[in-house]
């Protein structure tokens, strides 16, 4: 008997069923291989940052990915076996041994996974080429488009594919070996037994999750929190365990308990959609809860990773604007000819040149700069220079209207007291008010103060000073040419362009890896959800046909189908989203001090990453949901 022919015909005839599986596998293997190519491409990794960092991230991701793959491959394999239970029963009744049946299944899986592996590798070459071109153009990297080819990434992906086959082989062998012939054809009848729900596990799930979240929120206390008193690692472990247990029990037990309560209330149950959906959903939760829990946890990790990446990107951007306010800031005394050259360069680029005199002074009493810092040492500039520079940097006239000549403005990263009263500086009494913006690089432990021109003149009479030169203008912060021109003068200066480029170079590889990993897992989860709904729908086509026959109209059937789909979609997305956001909040409070967040802007640091991540999640999964819904309608004929 030619098993290869049987296997090929099975795939050919059942291509409708296998098509989506093949596409999902190809996409997942494609993304996985893209990650491997990136990690092993030392040319690009070195040009971005340390390749060791990139390799390490890829190594960890590969292990996690492989673990999830085992779970999902077994899950899908069992589904296909159940779908083909009748066919397998016919094989056994015709005289095929269990070994023969396993051989046919192995050949089929080898063909599909083999084809998906090659398709994935081909896709990955396309993906990677596009990403590389994008990086070279966007970051202006000085590397060739074509670099030496390495086979190692492809070997890793092929090894993963072989590993998938081995997992399927052992699963099939284990499952079919222990079944009697009659039970092989009854594979799809397993599981139709009463679902028992327990209230205590239902409540335990909620309590466990809430305690976990409360522990995360305890980080708000920062130094006073339990995390500092008990220790980060033990607290992190406890919180993680509580959240995982909570997620597991809520999906497996709490949801089932709530549905069961509705079922026992016949007034709720005996409604057209409920009568079908509620009992069905109880079984769905029983058979799919493990999958939904795993998906929730993966989504949590992806959300936390994505939001954290956005936080770090914003952190980098915001800190740069705050710490390097001018496009170019020259911190040395220039000779007259040097000043002329700089002015000419500035004029050539359409910028504004400003000379800033900074006086070193001493206050009579310490001036508080932050929660932990106070100093008597001051650096003073005059108010007209202060306002002029701000105008050049922000080009917003309203900045000037906020500043009164009767007051002096003390730069603080965030509001401490607003009005500071009167301070004696170099025998001049100044009324201090706080400001959170400052137009020059504010380094060291100094109180940076802007005073009115009259007071500035008096303070400067018996004080040392230095001169700083600032260049600002439209689009000059990112201007490489301007930077190079100033560099040629061989003077000491701070450049917004260079600082940004260095920060980007240092972090870009890590950000890129994190983005790839997020995209990989987003696609992975999307495929799983889509495929799960597809599998589910195929299992109920007959039931929906029957419901149509006895009088359910298309609207009612669509309602039931929507409810079924949402049962698969919503729990992992809601639980994953909540857990992910809590993890992100935990990260924010644990690794970034409150004053840093206030200085850089709470919305930019926290609000924006959360909103963008939630939007991305919403868009990505809405697309998947819409595809799934249309496929469901097509399969059910509604």
């Amino acid at each position, binding site marked *: 008997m030619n098993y290869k022919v049987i296997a090929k015909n099975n795939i050919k005839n059942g291509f409708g069923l296998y098509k989506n599986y093949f596409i999902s596998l190809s996409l997942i293997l494609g993304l996985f291989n893209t990650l491997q190519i990136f990690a092993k491409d030392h040319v690009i990794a070195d040009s971005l940052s340390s390749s060791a960092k990139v390799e390490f991230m890829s190594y960890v991701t590969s292990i996690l990915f492989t673990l999830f793959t085992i779970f999902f491959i077994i899950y899908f394999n069992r589904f296909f076996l159940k779908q083909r239970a009748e066919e397998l029963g016919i094989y056994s009744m015709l005289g095929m041994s269990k070994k023969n049946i396993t051989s046919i299944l192995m050949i089929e899986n080898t063909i599909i996974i083999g084809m998906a592996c090659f398709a994935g590798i081909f896709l990955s070459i396309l993906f990677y080429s596009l990403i590389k071109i994008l990086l070279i153009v966007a970051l202006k990297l000085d590397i060739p488009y074509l670099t030496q080819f390495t086979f190692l990434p492809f070997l890793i992906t092929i090894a993963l594919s072989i590993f998938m086959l081995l997992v399927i082989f052992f699963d099939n062998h284990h499952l079919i070996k222990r079944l009697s012939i009659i039970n092989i054809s009854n594979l799809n*009848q397993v599981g*139709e*037994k*009463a679902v028992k729900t327990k209230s205590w596990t239902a409540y335990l799930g909620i309590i466990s999750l809430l305690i976990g979240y409360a522990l995360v929120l305890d980080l708000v206390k920062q130094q006073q929190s339990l995390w500092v008193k008990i220790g980060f690692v033990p607290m992190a472990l406890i919180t993680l365990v509580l959240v995982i247990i909570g997620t597991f029990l809520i999906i497996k037990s709490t949801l089932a308990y709530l549905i069961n309560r509705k079922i026992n209330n*016949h*007034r709720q*149950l*005996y*409604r*057209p959609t*409920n*009568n*079908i959906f509620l*009992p*069905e959903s*109880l*079984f769905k939760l029983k058979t799919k809860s493990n999958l939904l829990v795993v998906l929730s946890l993966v989504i949590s990790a992806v959300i936390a990773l994505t939001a954290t990446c956005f936080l770090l990107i914003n952190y980098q951007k915001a800190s740069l604007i705050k710490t390097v306010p001018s496009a170019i800031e020259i911190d040395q005394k220039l000779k007259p000819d040097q000043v002329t050259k700089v002015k000419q360069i500035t004029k050539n680029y359409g910028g504004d040149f400003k000379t800033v005199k900074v006086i070193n002074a001493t206050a009579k009493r310490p001036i508080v700069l932050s929660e932990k810092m106070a100093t008597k040492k001051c650096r003073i500039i005059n108010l007209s220079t202060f306002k002029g520079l701000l105008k050049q940097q922000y080009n917003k006239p309203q900045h000037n209207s906020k500043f009164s000549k009767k007051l002096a403005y003390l730069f603080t990263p965030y509001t401490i007291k607003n009005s500071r009263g009167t301070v004696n500086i170099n025998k001049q009494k100044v009324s201090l008010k706080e400001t959170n913006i400052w137009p020059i690089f504010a380094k060291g432990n100094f109180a940076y103060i802007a005073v009115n021109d009259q007071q500035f003149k008096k303070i400067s009479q018996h004080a040392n000073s230095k001169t700083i030169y600032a260049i600002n203008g439209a689009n000059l912060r990112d201007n490489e040419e301007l930077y190079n021109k100033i560099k040629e003068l061989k003077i000491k200066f701070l450049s917004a362009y260079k600082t940004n480029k260095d920060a980007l170079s240092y972090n870009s590889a890590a950000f890129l890896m994190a983005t790839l990993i997020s995209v990989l897992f987003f696609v992975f989860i999307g495929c799983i959800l889509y495929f799960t709904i597809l599998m589910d729908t195929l299992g109920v086509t*007959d*039931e929906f046909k*029957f*419901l*149509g*026959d*006895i*009088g*359910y*109209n*298309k*609207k*009612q059937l669509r309602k039931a189908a929507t409810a079924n789909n949402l049962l698969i979609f919503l729990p992992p997305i809601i639980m994953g989203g909540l857990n992910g956001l809590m993890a992100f909040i935990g990260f924010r409070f644990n690794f970034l001090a409150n004053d840093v967040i206030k200085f850089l802007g709470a919305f930019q640091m926290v609000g924006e990453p959360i909103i963008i991540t939630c939007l991305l999640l919403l868009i990505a999964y809405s697309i998947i949901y819409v595809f799934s819904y249309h496929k469901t309608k097509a399969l059910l004929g509604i």
Partner: protein
Amino acid sequence: MTKILRVNNVTKFYEKRYQALAGINFAVDFGEFVAIMGASGSGKTTLLNMISTLDTASGGTIYVDEHEISKLSDDEAANFRKKKLGFVFQNYRLLKSLTVRQNIAVPMSLLGRNDQEIDQKIDKLAEYFRLSDQLDKYPVALSGGQKQRVAIIRAIIKNPALLFADEPTGALDSQAAKLIMEYLAKVNQKFNTSILMVTHDSLAASYANKVIFLKDGKIVDQIVKKDSNDVFQQLLAQRLAEVEA
């Protein structure tokens, strides 16, 4: 006597060339039990699908309970089936995730009846069909005969104008088949439910008041029951063999 069903010159073509039904004319009286017999491919199931609004006729008219059903839209047809028709299928078509009680409740839930009325009716009918102990079980735990009884209760619980049975004994052994037919006959007699049954089983057909024979999409004979079930069964078996030849 009022006609519950009137089929007037109904034809059905597939892909504009294959004629499955050719000018079918017959009627069913209110409270009558009619069986349709014929060989495989004679058009029995096609005819049943036309009458039960699951398919549309290419020509002719069909009246069920004085409603013309030949040109109903999908939603109108679904609404009509919901209110007026009951179905019993060969493979039972019970929802495997629902208990027996929940399965039986489906048609009444669809009609929007209140939970107390539904439960009372279920309990009463379950007792009549000797299924009271099975109400909280799932279909997988039932025998074929029990499943078909559940299907019958589900079909009659809303007092349909017309009950359709498509090979109701097809998946049962002879003993279970006999029991099911006795129940169907009781349903017809006790509840006065009009029944239209499609079958190739002469035992099943012997419980009907009238049997219509189809061949190649046409009615070739109609026999009204005058004798006992056993005699009628022999007559039907003989006639079916002649029709199939």
